[in-house]
């Protein structure tokens, strides 16, 4: 009953200064809205990185030649020829934590068929590559191990190649394409995958037996990299260790510091990327938090002015029976009402801003419940915290002095 009356009193006081109340709220509204929108953007990008990486094969392990030392000279990993076919074979035969493994050699060049041409990349792999990269065939078939062995000039192509080289809509299966003048017969088409996290078109791809790419296109006998699948995501770090051990043995390396190869798991990439986006989120939230703090100071400022300005009103309220606690609670309720109303408007504005970001800029966003709850709680605390001191000041006034205040 008493609180209800004080609520009524506070509400009437707020209604008397609509414009000023709104401007005071604005700080809180913007603060809360930005916390929610920033968290939604941060959360959205973290999630989208995670899903995209797992669509690339979250248990994938990549082995590349590494910055080893050869006679004291550090070499560019791209030029290193330390990964050999034997490495692939021993990993395939010895590794127990790998389910699929494929060498990878790639070259870029021009794809030509009839009057159409397109710049693209060719990847020399084994049939297991489909499983490792989680690729599906839309039509036709993958080349076989026998075709790998015989270095057959057959290719499986991605949707981007189909669209640019075979724009008429007819099936490319059985057609010939030429990659850097070397003819390949199209035997399969991949399901589209879209862009990956880094904006790379995953459909702009040609797969061919690695033997054919090595001999016909690159004229090399070493491997540029090896990709493999760990039995599952959890065991990927163990698989990385196993692979490293086998390779060290092959390369007769005793000190891990001198590794001439690098083994990455997607796990590490996920962690690296999401920690980047988490740092970004923390920064965004910190900025938003600061604006909330400034909003709070705005409330304190206005409450101060309000107490000063309404000194006689406070004196009157005390004269007609308002106790110190009544005055304190009234001003505290005013501050909390301002901050909470600001909070509600801020949540609504934040969600609308998030929807705009999502629909206009096409950024992935996720509004999380916890961000709404946290920013709302912070608001209420802001109101109490910044309303407390002015309210105390009001409650401590001497009614005799306050009544005669000019």
């Amino acid at each position, binding site marked *: 009953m008493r609180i209800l009356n004080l609520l009524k009193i506070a509400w009437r006081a707020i209604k*008397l200064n609509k414009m000023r109340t709104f401007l005071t709220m604005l700080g809180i509204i913007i603060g809360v809205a930005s916390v929610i929108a920033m968290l939604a953007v941060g959360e959205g990008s973290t999630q989208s990185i995670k899903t995209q990486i797992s669509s690339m094969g979250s248990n994938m392990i990549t082995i590349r030649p590494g910055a080893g030392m050869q006679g004291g000279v550090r070499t560019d990993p791209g030029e290193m020829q330390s990964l050999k076919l034997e490495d692939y074979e021993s990993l395939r035969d010895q590794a127990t934590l790998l389910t699929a493994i494929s060498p990878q050699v790639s070259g870029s060049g021009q794809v030509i068929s009839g009057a159409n041409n397109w710049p693209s990349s060719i990847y020399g792999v084994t049939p297991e590559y489909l499983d490792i990269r989680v690729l599906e065939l839309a039509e036709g078939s993958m080349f076989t191990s026998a075709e790998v062995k015989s270095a057959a000039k057959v290719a499986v192509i991605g949707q981007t190649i189909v669209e640019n080289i075979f724009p008429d809509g007819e099936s490319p299966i059985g057609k010939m394409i030429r990659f850097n003048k070397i003819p390949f017969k199209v035997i399969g088409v991949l399901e589209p995958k879209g862009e990956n996290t880094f904006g790379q078109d995953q459909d702009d791809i040609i797969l061919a037996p690695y033997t054919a790419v090595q001999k016909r296109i690159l004229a090399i006998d070493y491997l540029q990299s090896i990709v493999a699948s760990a039995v599952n995501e959890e065991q990927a770090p163990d698989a990385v260790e196993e692979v490293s051990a086998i390779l060290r043995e092959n390369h007769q390396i005793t000190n891990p510091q001198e590794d001439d190869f690098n083994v990455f798991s997607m796990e590490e990439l996920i962690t690296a990327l999401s920690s980047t986006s988490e740092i970004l989120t923390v920064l965004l939230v910190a900025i938003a938090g600061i604006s909330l703090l400034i909003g709070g100071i705005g409330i304190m400022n206005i409450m101060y002015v309000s107490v000063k300005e309404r000194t*006689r009103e406070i004196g*009157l309220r005390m004269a007609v029976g308002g106790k*110190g606690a009544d005055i304190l609670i009234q001003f505290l309720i005013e501050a909390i009402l301002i901050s909470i109303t600001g909070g509600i408007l801020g949540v609504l504005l934040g969600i609308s801003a998030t929807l705009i970001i999502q629909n206009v800029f096409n950024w992935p966003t996720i509004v999380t419940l916890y961000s709404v709850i946290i920013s709302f709680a912070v608001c209420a605390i802001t109101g109490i915290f910044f309303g407390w001191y002015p309210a105390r000041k009001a409650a401590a006034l001497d009614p*005799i002095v306050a009544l005669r205040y000019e």
Partner: protein
Amino acid sequence: MSKTIIDIDTLKREFIMGTETVHALKGISYAIKEGEFVTIMGSSGSGKSTMLNILGCLDQPTSGSYKIDQVAVNALSRNELAQIRNEKIGFIFQSYNLLPRTSAIENAELPLLYNSKVSSEERRKRAIDALNLVGLGERLDHTPAQLSGGQQQRVAIARSLVNDPVVILADEATGNLDTRTSYEIMALFQDLNRKGKTIVFVTHEDDIARFSNRTIILKDGTIISDKINEDILDAAQELAALPKEN
């Protein structure tokens, strides 16, 4: 014998100003009975403001006793004083002290908002009754800015009546008003007094004092005169006798 509303006995109030002690009230005694209409007069510095603050339970005496409606005020805490003010005293100020941009009805019901025993329907009803009593039944929703000075003071009077106090304390209640309006307000006070309200009116204007039935004059913190008025003027008649305004 009607009951004693205000009972003051050798009341002193001293203020310490730096190293000096100011004796604002130097041992005053008097009693006010129910139904009296008392004016307290005195020039500035006579101690009448201090007297009013103590009567209104806004301040407490340094020594001596003050009982309002049989309750000794001396020993009460700040919160208990607030409750006494809320239930037993109606305040009227020179500058009305109404809440701006707030309707007459909301201004009048203000004291009851601090009394949780009164329901919101009861509160509204009593505010409307009080406004009717002061002749503002037609202006319940007007804000102070839409009312004349006299009407604003009537709202303040309605506010002082709404808690049905044992005494109404008026501090220079006609100080901001012209003669005609002052007489109108005094007529209202006389009317309320005839209905049984005890009124203590602090003023420095002699002609206002003549409408009351007892005058206490303070000087330098002591009472120099306390007498019953034999010749009480009727404010309504005086009002009629004023030259017509055009």
